[in-house]
C-alpha cells in the first residue's frame, strides 16, 4: 500500500520496511482462519521456522550479493557440495578408528566436519569473488597448483613433498597472472552460472554419484525439534523453543543486519550496488569489498549447507536443487532490487518465512504441491508489483 506522502520520512521508511512483514502477518492470519485447529499451533510454528532455516541462512548471503548489484546462482550446488563434504569427513573420521574413543560424544568430529564444510564454501566464495573482479587467472593458478599436487600425491609422492610442490606451482602461476596486469571483470551472473554447474559436478564426483551415509553425530540434532522436559516451563528456556538450527538462523540474521546497517563494509555494499562508479569516485576499494562480499555470502551458504546436511542426515549430491531461486525469491519478496542498492535483512527474513508459511499452510488446508508452487510463483510477481506501486506513490 502506498504510504501517505504527508507522513514524516522516518515513519514512511519504517512503513516501507514493514511491508513484507505485514504481508507475512496477513498470510499467516488467512491460514490461521482457515485451519484454526492445526495451523496456528506451537508445533506447526516450529516446523515453519525449521523449513525456513536453510534457505533463510543462504538468503542472508544472497541478500548481500543482491544489494551489491550482483547475483548468486551457485547457492544450491554449493549447499550440495558442503553437505557431501561434511558427510565424507564424518565417515572418514569414524572409519579412521580410534580417535573417536577419546571423544565419545562425537562433538569434536562434528565441529571439525562443519568447519571443513564451511571453509570449503568460503574458498568457493573467494573464487567467485576473484572471477567477478576480473582475476580469473588467480583461480586458475590455484586450481593448477592443487591439481599438480594431487596428481603427484596419487602417483606416490609423499604429501610432505606434494604440498610444497602444489604451493610453488600455484605461486608461480599467481605471479605470472600478476605480471599480465589485466583484469577481465565478469558478470556475477555468468561466474555463478558456471559455478552452479561446476560445484554440482564436484559434489557428484566427491560422493561418487550416490548419497553418502555417515555415522550419527550431534550435528544431526541441529535441525531436530528439541525435546523439552515435560514438566518445565518453556518461557524461560529459549533453548527449547525451537531447534538449534533456527537459533543459528535468527542469530546470523541479526548479525548480518547489523553488519549491513552499521558498518563501513555494509554501507559500502549499498553504495556499490547503487552506483559502482560513485563508490569508486568516493575512494571505496570496490574490488576488495566485492571479494569480501562473495566470501561472506559463500560462508553463509556453507552454514546453510551444514544445516541442510543436518536436516536430511545424509550427504546427498542432488540436494538443494534450485535453492538459489528460493534465495532470490526471498530477497525480492523482501523488497530487494535486482539492480542493486536496495534491500534489507528484515525484508529477506520475512520473505523467506512468507514462502515457507505458504507451503506449510497450503499443505494444511489440503492443497497439492503443484498448487503451492503456482501460489508461490504468483506471490513473487505480486510482491514485486506491490513494491513498485509503493515506490511510485512515494516518488
Amino acid at each position, binding site marked *: 500500500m502506498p504510504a501517505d506522502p504527508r507522513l514524516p520520512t522516518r515513519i514512511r521508511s519504517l512503513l516501507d520496511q514493514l511491508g513484507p512483514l505485514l504481508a507475512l502477518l496477513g498470510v499467516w492470519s488467512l491460514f490461521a482462519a482457515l485451519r484454526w485447529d492445526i495451523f496456528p499451533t506451537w508445533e506447526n510454528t516450529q516446523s515453519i521456522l525449521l523449513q525456513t532455516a536453510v534457505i533463510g541462512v543462504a538468503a542472508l548471503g544472497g541478500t548481500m550479493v543482491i544489494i551489491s548489484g550482483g547475483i548468486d546462482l551457485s547457492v544450491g550446488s554449493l549447499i550440495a557440495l558442503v553437505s557431501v563434504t561434511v558427510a565424507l569427513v564424518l565417515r572418514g573420521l569414524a572409519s579412521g578408528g580410534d580417535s573417536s574413543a577419546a571423544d565419545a560424544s562425537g562433538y569434536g568430529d562434528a565441529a571439525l566436519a562443519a568447519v571443513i564444510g564451511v571453509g570449503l564454501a568460503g574458498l568457493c566464495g573467494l573464487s567467485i569473488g576473484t572471477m567477478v573482479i576480473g582475476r580469473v587467472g588467480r583461480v586458475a593458478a590455484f586450481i593448477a597448483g592443487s591439481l599438480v599436487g594431487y596428481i603427484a600425491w596419487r602417483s606416490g609422492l609423499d604429501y610432505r613433498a606434494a604440498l610444497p610442490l602444489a604451493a610453488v606451482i600455484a605461486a608461480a602461476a599467481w605471479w605470472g597472472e600478476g605480471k599480465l596486469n589485466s583484469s577481465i571483470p565478469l558478470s556475477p551472473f555468468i561466474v555463478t552460472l558456471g559455478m552452479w554447474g561446476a560445484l554440482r559436478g564436484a559434489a557428484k564426483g566427491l560422493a561418487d554419484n550416490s548419497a553418502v551415509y555417515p555415522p550419527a553425530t550431534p550435528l544431526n540434532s541441529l535441525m531436530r525439534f528439541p525435546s523439552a522436559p515435560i514438566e518445565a516451563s518453556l518461557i524461560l528456556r529459549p533453548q527449547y523453543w525451537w531447534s538449534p538450527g533456527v537459533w543459528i538462523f535468527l542469530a546470523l540474521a541479526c548479525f548480518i543486519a547489523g553488519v549491513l546497517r552499521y*558498518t*563501513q563494509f555494509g554501507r559500502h555494499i549499498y553504495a556499490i550496488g547503487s*552506483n559502482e562508479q*560513485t563508490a*569508486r569516485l568516493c*575512494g*571505496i576499494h570496490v574490488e576488495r569489498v566485492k571479494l569480501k562480499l562473495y566470501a561472506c555470502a559463500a560462508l553463509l551458504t556453507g552454514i546453510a549447507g551444514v544445516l541442510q546436511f543436518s536436516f536430511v542426515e545424509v550427504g546427498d549430491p542432488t540436494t538443494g536443487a534450485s535453492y538459489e531461486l528460493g534465495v532470490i525469491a526471498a530477497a525480492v519478496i523482501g523488497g530487494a532490487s535486482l539492480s542493486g542498492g536496495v534491500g534489507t535483512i528484515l525484508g529477506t527474513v520475512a520473505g523467506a518465512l512468507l514462502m515457507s508459511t505458504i507451503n506449510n499452510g497450503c499443505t494444511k488446508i489440503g492443497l497439492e504441491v503443484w498448487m503451492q508452487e503456482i501460489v508461490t510463483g504468483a506471490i513473487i510477481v505480486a510482491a514485486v508489483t506491490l513494491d513498485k506501486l509503493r515506490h511510485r506513490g512515494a516518488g
Partner: protein
Amino acid sequence: MPPRLAMSGVRHRYGATQALSGVDLEVRSGEVHALVGENGAGKSTLMKILSGALIPDAGSMQLDGEPYRPQTPADGRAAGVAMIYQELSLAPDLSVAENISLGVEPTRGPFVRRHELRERARAALAEIGRPELPLDLPAGRLSVAEQQLVEIARSVATGCRILVLDEPTSTLSQQDVERLFTLIRRLRERGLAIVYISHFLEEVKAICDRFTALRDGQTTGSGDAKSTPADRIVAMMVGRAVDDLYPRTPRTCGETVLSIRDLAGVAKPESATLDLRRGEVVGIAGIIGAGRTELLRALMGLDPVARGTVRVATLEGWQSPSARWRQGMGLVSEDRKREGLALELTIAENITLPKLSGLTPRGWVTPAAQDRASQPLVERLGIKCRSPRQPVGALSGGNQQKVAIARLLHADVDMLLLDEPTRGIDVGSKAEICRLINELAVGDSVAGRAPKAVLIVSSYLPELLGLCDRIAVMCRGRLGDARPVEAWSEHEIMLAATGAKTEPART
C-alpha cells in the same frame, strides 16, 4: 494565418504539486522559439504535455488552428510533434538507417523493405545537410553530436511540424554547436517551428527569434529574443535580479598543494604541467574531448598515469582514490547520474560516503550519525530537501550537484577538483555554487576554515573568467600555461582551445 502551435491556460497537477498553473505559449512556423526557466519551472512538464506523454488538467492546445488533444506520445508524433531530449533515444546496436525509420519501417507483409529503408535514410540525411553519415554503422558508434543529428533526421523523415530541442548543446563541443545552429537555421527556413529549451542565454540570443519565460509553472513573459536585454530575461526566469553571478573576494595564495609535471595518461592527457596553490581558483578551459576530464581522473587516481609526476604536498606518485581522499583531494564528477551520485541512496549517505570512519566514537555507521554529519552541510549549501534521509534521485539537478560538493566538504578536503560543476543546473543554484566556490577559496578565519585550492574544468567561459584567478587551456591533450585571468578574453580562450593559437596576446 494561425500560429503553428498555440497553448493557452495549460494547467497540470502531480499529486500535491501544482506543476503548471496557467501557461501560454505561442510558436509560429519558421521561427526558433526559446523556452527558458529555472529547473522546476515546469518546462519539462509543459513539453511532456505537448508530446502527449501527459494529459493536462485544463487549458487548450491548437496546431495550425486545429484543436490538438494528444492522449499518448504516439498521437503527438502522428500530429507532427517531434522531441529531441538531452538523453538521446537511439537503439545503439541498430544501424543509422534502421534508426531513422524506427517504428515506421517500410514493409511488405512481415518483411522490411531494406532498399527503401536506406533510400529514406539517405534522403533524410541529405535534408539535414549531412549526407556523408554512414548508413550501415551501428548508431552507438557515432559521436554524441552525430547521434543527435540522426535523431533530428528521424524527426524530419517522419514529417514533423514542430521540433522540440531540450538542452541540445549541453553535451556538444563548440564546433558541433556551430554545426547544430546552422542546421537549425536551415530547418527554420523550411518553415519548421522549433522550440529551443536552454539554460544558456547566450545561445538563446544567438539562435532564437522569440522567447517565453516560465517561473513556478506560469508564463512570466515573452518577447523578442534579440532585442530583450539578457538581465530582463533572467529577471523573468528567477523573479529577482541576479546581481552578481560571480562574486570575487580578494584572495591570498598560500603554499603549493598540488604540483603536476608533464603528466600523461594512457590516451589523454598527453602532457600537463600545473601548480595549484591554497587559496586560488584555477580554471581549465578547452573543447569537449580535449582531455580535461581525463586529467582530473588521473589526478584523483581513477585512471592510470603513463608518465610524469603528481605531487600532493610532499607525496609523489600515483595513488588510489581512497589515498587521494586521505591526502585531502576530492573530485566532483561531470556526470552526476552515471558517476557522481548514488541516486537510490539518501542525501546523508551520499555526503558521508568518502569518510564513514569517525562518525561515532566506536566506528559504527549509524543513520543518525550520518544525519548529524550532513545536516550542517545541507544548511550551509542550501540543499532544498525534506530531510537528509530523502533519496538523492528525488532532488533537482542543482540540489544534486550541491550534494556532490557537500561530500568534499564532509571529507574536509584541501583540493577540490570540480568537473563542469554548473552544467545543466538552474540559474539560482549556479549562483549559489559560484558563491560557495569563492567562499571556499577565500576561507574564513572566524569560523576557522582554511582557504582551499580549487581546480575547475568548465566549458562555460563566462564562468571561468568570472571565478578563476588563473586559467589554463587544454587543446588536444596538451595543457597550456596557466595565466592570470586578466590575460584572457573569451575570444583568446577559444582560439587557444581550438588550436588556432597557443599563446594569449599580451595585454
